[in-house]
């Protein structure tokens, strides 16, 4: 399984790895965040960002800025980076890069379907979609009335089609259904991505399996916490967990029966890597869990850059940029709403 990556990796992957490492060098640093946190208004943020890689994307924005504009433009930069890399990529890296966007695709599908369920305007919903998760006939999702139609009409053409096999029912769509669909899709996606990475082998498999296992475990915890107190049965809950990761299988059994957050905590503390995350939280608290998980994720993603000749750097870069955009959004929101005391609540420093 362990090929001689160092020998042959650079033939196809060398250029792009250099590109992605260059991009990584452009990520905002702690000093940048400190400066950003001191900004008085959104123009200050723009001024500060103009010295970073976001500069060209923001420079032509007229002055009364909105948070959404900043986020939109920053996302545009990420998308441009991604598209550039995708254009240059050859197999199997291009497939790997495409896999990265499937998560956004699932989110977009869910967003549109829930939106139409609540009778929102399709155009408005489309604007909210993440540009990385766009596909041709995404707007047609609004036509579908139930899962079966959803699949038959639209999704059969998308890469998500194979993931759908488990949730084709004729039930009418409702919020609960959709949420279950999202998680089922995500489960199938993660498992597929995991298998794909295992097939690639080498350092990619090694690092990606760690990153994806973390992702799967985090989703398992989130599913558990979110489903506490809902009508979801234990078996159904159990079905939503991905079949790999550190928690698989015994942790899943424990999580499946949890009835409150402290039980989740007890289940998780048996796993050393997660012990430190839960150690930061006080009992009964789940608010800060997201941030703790994000911090842990960022740490792991940064570590991916320590090793050479593998594809996980692309995944890590995309994830780090997304985290950075989340940070920027939070900071901009805080600045715009004069809530500067809360700035540090949700910002995850990358370096």
């Amino acid at each position, binding site marked *: 399984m362990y090929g001689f990556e160092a020998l042959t990796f650079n033939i196809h992957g060398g250029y792009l790895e250099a590109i992605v490492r260059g991009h990584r060098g452009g990520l905002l640093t702690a000093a940048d965040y400190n*400066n950003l946190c*001191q*900004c*008085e208004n959104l*123009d*200050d943020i723009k*001024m*500060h960002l*103009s*010295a970073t890689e976001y500069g060209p994307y923001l*420079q*032509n*924005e*007229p*002055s009364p800025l909105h948070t959404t504009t900043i986020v939109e433009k920053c996302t545009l930069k990420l998308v441009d980076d991604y598209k550039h890399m995708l254009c240059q990529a050859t197999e199997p890296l291009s497939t790997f890069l495409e896999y990265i966007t499937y998560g956004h695709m699932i989110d977009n599908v869910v967003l549109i379907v829930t939106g139409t369920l609540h009778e929102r305007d*399709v155009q408005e919903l489309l604007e909210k979609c993440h540009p990385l998760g766009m596909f*041709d*006939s*995404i*707007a*047609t*999702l*609004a*036509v579908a009335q139930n899962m079966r139609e959803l699949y*038959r*009409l*639209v999704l059969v*053409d998308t890469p998500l089609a194979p993931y759908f096999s488990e949730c084709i029912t004729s039930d009418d769509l409702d919020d609960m259904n959709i949420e279950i669909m999202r998680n089922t899709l995500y489960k199938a996606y993660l498992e597929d991505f995991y298998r794909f990475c295992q097939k690639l082998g080498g350092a990619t498999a090694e690092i990606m399996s760690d990153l994806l296992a973390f992702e799967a475990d985090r989703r398992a915890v989130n599913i558990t916490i979110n489903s506490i107190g809902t009508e979801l049965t234990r078996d159904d809950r159990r079905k939503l967990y991905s079949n790999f990761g550190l928690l698989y299988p015994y942790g899943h059994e424990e999580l499946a029966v949890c009835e409150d957050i402290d039980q989740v905590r007890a289940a998780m503390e048996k796993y050393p890597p997660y012990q430190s995350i839960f150690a930061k939280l006080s009992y009964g608290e789940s608010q800060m869990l997201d941030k703790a998980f994000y911090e842990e994720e960022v740490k792991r993603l940064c570590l991916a850059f320590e090793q050479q000749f593998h594809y996980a750097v692309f995944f890590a870069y995309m994830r780090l940029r997304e985290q950075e955009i989340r940070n920027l959004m939070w900071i901009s929101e805080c600045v715009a709403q004069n809530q500067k005391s809360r700035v540090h609540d949700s910002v995850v420093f990358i370096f």
Partner: protein
Amino acid sequence: MTDGGCCPTMDLLRSEPMQLVQLIIPTESAYRAVSYLGDLGLFQFKDLNAEKSPFQRTYAVQIKRCGEMTRKLRFFKEQMAKAGVSPSTRSMRDGEVDLDKLEVKLAELEAELIENNANNDKLQHSYSELLEYKLVLHKVGEFFSPAQKSAQSQQREHGVQSNSEGSIDSPLLQEQMTTETSKPIKLGFTAGLVPREKSMSFERILFRATRGNFFLKQATIEHPVLDPLSGEKVDKNVFLIFYSGERANSKILKICDAFGANRYPFTEDLSKQFQMITEVSGRLSELRTTIDVGLLHRSARLQTIGYHYETWILLVKKVKSIYHTLNMFNVDVTKKCLVAEGWCPVFATNQIQSALLRARMDSNSQVGTIFQVLQTKESPPTYFRINKFTSAFQEIVDAYGVAKYREANPGVFTIITFPFLFAVMFGDWGHGICLFLVTLYFIIREKKFSSQKLGDIVEMTFGGRYVIMMMALFSIYTGLIYNEFFSVPFELFGPSAYGCRDPSCRDAGTTGLIRVRRNYPFGLDPKWHGTRSELPFLNSLKMKMSILLGVAQMNLGIILSYCNAKYFGNGINIWHQFIPQMIFLNCLFGYLSLLIIVKWCTGSQADLYHVMIYMFLSPTADLGENQLFGGQKLLQLVLLMLALIAVPWMLFPKPFLLRKQHQERHQGQSYSLLHAIDDPLEAEPNSHTDHHEEFDFSEVFVHQLIHTIEFVLGAVSNTASYLRLWALSLAHSELSSVFYDKVLLLAWGFNNIFVLIIGIAVFIFATVGVLLIMETLSAFLHALRLHWVEFQNKFYEGDGYKFSPFSFTLLNEDDEA
């Protein structure tokens, strides 16, 4: 060489004396003062707020305003580019434009333009919608008419009167339901346009959504159509869908929306169709004129903007840079004045003061600016007053390292030595003339070239045009000495000194030649060319010449180190570095040079390798036939001893003396501290100037050891390195003679016009490609190396930093590409 003295100061040898100046400028005149200093371009401001982030500085608001204005200007530029209006290149100066007024004006213009654009877009939108509608009417009409004809004929056959011409209109959905007499079902249809690349998936989704119960007809439109929404040209298909049932209808509408397919109402009725077409055409032409008028208005507006554009953008840039500079100032506690610090050349003091005075007058300030020279330990920036001729040579030196403040600048010597060493390697006056013509072209078209953007390589050549010109002139000179014109010798300076003894020696003339005349007056005798002894003769000549040139240049380097030591008053460096180095180099290689000259003058047969090698191996042995002059053995012994003494002399005294100096200084400090109790005023500056870093003896000693080893080994290796002059010169002349003999003469020998043409072509390409471009590059690089390594390491520190004054003239240069 020292400051002042008998001769005029050499501006290029030592950088300009600089001073650190503190300006205390009243707030009201600060802007103008900075602006005048920017015009002058001789003041480098220091950033006194380095720890503040950009938006915390005093003038952040103004900079933001400028950024906003640049954004507007960029918007105008974009609009102008779209409208095909180019900004007038000649920038007109319409006096002092006020920034505030300009800001207002720009905002107005922008608002106007945006409104204009919005109106235009709206019109364009409806225009392209109508255009699409027209297309739909045409194309769908084409679908319908044959179908209708066949239907009518069918009806006629069946003899059934069709009375259901009137169709049920549903105006909200803009579609029609028709009833066909033959079938009882109501069929609805929808017509519109869909982007071509989506048409396949469109059809597929329709099929899935209606479970195949639909009929779709598509027709391609030949030319791309303006999409009403995006305003871009898109390839589109006209489509017509028939379906049945209300649910299918709503589904199809949704799908159409999702695919960005524009739907248009359509009637089956031919007369109505015809009426609609004329209506649409009429409205189209109406809209066209409106749009044209709008566009005309807009382009006129843009034209006026374009007229001012250059001035405005320059002004905004200027203002922005002024505020950037102002942001580097400290605000005084009273907020009444700004404190600036910066470097300026001493000679510019008066100019700066008068500029400041002017600023005060013009802004009617009550208080003048205080110009105060500060004492500092900090090393000032290096500033040479260079012109377009010397700048390229200074670039060569700066690429290695910018001279330390007031250090002897090798750039002065580089102007001559660099082209000369190049020419030694590139000696051919034919090639020299070619190079010269090229640079002459660049120099004559200088004005034109400097104003336009050039390619990478042309830019480089153009930048170094004066260097290349000097190189070309020198290679003409050395080419005359080598007597080579595309490797062909000429008897330019009279007839050759050699002639034939008898008529049998015509061809190669190696053995039969005897000396018939006096020496050839200048350069190499043309008769050497092509003889069997040509190479040994030339090699020996060029090799020796290389060594002579090398030793001369290295000596110059060491002498310059003396100049530096003298200038900075560093006695240790003179006595314990310069003198032993001089002795060492000249005892070994100076002596070799002496031997070479003696050998040339006397025509002796002595073997110089043997002399040099046995000078070390057995200095006391007898020289035998290698003796060139009397007392040589004794001289050699003395020289060897001197050289041996010079090595420890270089190594040991300097670190010890430095340590002693340091200790003395420390003692002095303690004395002054004692005095300080009595006289604190006097002790203050003393203790202030003496905060030296710790003296680490071992480090200094190791450093000196490295330095000594480097010099001693370097003396040998550097001298050997100068032999590249010979090697490259040899390569050049051999290559060019190969091209001449084996290509041109060979082709000539065939007596065939085609072969001759091919031969000439190959010769020209080889000469230009290999000799003129590649060889020039390689000789350039070798000359560069000889200067950077062999010459400059003898004296040049090169750890200074460049003087980069705040100047408006530099603003234009870093224009966006």
